[in-house]
């Protein structure tokens, strides 16, 4: 935070700093809990490790009422369109923490049915490795996200979110044109992206 103390009587800060301070200290998590990492999340929210002292008291399971999505667990290829829809329905400002190795890279599941990392289908801000990560690791991940938020500015362009919505439109167009399910459309988009040498579909 950029502050100037006039004899400790007056404190001035930039608007960005104030807004970011507010945002980073009131991150309401939306737990996208699908597997074992969700148990560690429960442990983190409980009294011993207590994420609510970071302002994350209000754990909302609705994308419309939260600003930080924690993807907790293995995302299969069939679940990928659901994850994208939920991320699309979150209101900005929004951030994603990919908790655990299954969400970050597919984890120990290198198979045809597991999405090899959610950053192939959604933009991710912080990755927390572990199988499952200890609650302290997850708290460290949230703290890293707070540091990232501090450095943002109000006029910062969030291109990755724009590109995500474009890719969602493309996915739906593909589904409508060829009569595919979400999983099949995403699979085709992934192969297209791989042909271009790009690691994500957005």
């Amino acid at each position, binding site marked *: 935070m950029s502050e100037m103390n006039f004899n400790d009587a007056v404190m001035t800060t930039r608007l960005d700093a104030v807004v970011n301070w507010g945002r980073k200290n009131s991150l309401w998590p939306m737990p996208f809990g699908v597997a074992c990492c969700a148990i560690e999340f429960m442990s983190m929210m409980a009294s011993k490790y207590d994420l609510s002292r970071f302002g994350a008291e209000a754990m909302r399971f609705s994308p419309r009422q939260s600003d930080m999505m924690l993807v907790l667990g293995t995302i299969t290829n069939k679940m990928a369109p659901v994850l994208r829809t939920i991320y699309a329905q979150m209101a900005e400002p929004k951030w994603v923490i990919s908790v655990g190795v299954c969400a970050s890279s597919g984890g120990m599941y*290198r*198979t*045809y*049915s597991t999405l*090899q990392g959610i*950053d*192939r289908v959604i*933009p991710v801000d912080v990755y927390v490795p572990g199988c499952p990560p200890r609650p302290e690791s997850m708290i460290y991940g949230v703290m890293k996200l707070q540091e990232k938020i501090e450095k943002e500015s109000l006029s910062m362009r969030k*291109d*990755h979110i724009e*590109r995500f919505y474009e890719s969602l439109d493309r996915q739906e167009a593909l589904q409508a044109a060829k009569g595919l*399910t979400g*999983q*099949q459309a995403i699979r085709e988009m*992934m*192969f297209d992206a*791989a*042909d271009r*040498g*790009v*690691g*994500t579909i*957005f």
Partner: protein
Amino acid sequence: MIIEHIDTQLPGTVTDRHAFRGDQTIVVAKDSFLPLVDLLYREGFQLLVDITAVDWPEREQRFDVVYHWLNLASQERLRVKVPVADGEAMLSLTGRFKTADWFEREVFDMFGVRFEGHPNLKRLLTWDDFPGHPLRKDFPLDGGDAFCMEGCTAPYNNGERG
């Protein structure tokens, strides 16, 4: 117990057997499978616990379709393996065991073994047009995933994977 019974009632059916720490396994040929199932059902092995398969690609009869039965009265379990070649159809047990329906669909989906007499032999876990059979040994581990870790950039973060 049951294996001796099979030997006396249907001699020559059991081509191979082994036991390990209380497990009993017998290998039978496809031709003698149905009479064996009738015998097992009469003897009380009325709970079909599982049907699955194993792929041995070097063998001529590539697949081993594996059945597990439980005798609820005597608490005895039996594993029956039936070697089947690629393209050869196995006999369906859906007439007698309702659970065989989805088990056989799963084996068809994962290995490609067809079951004669099955009322609805469609894929179960993958979608209808899925290319290939995932649990065969020659199916790529990640399903033909074209991504690799080197050479692919993340377009945001200015291309850094950081």
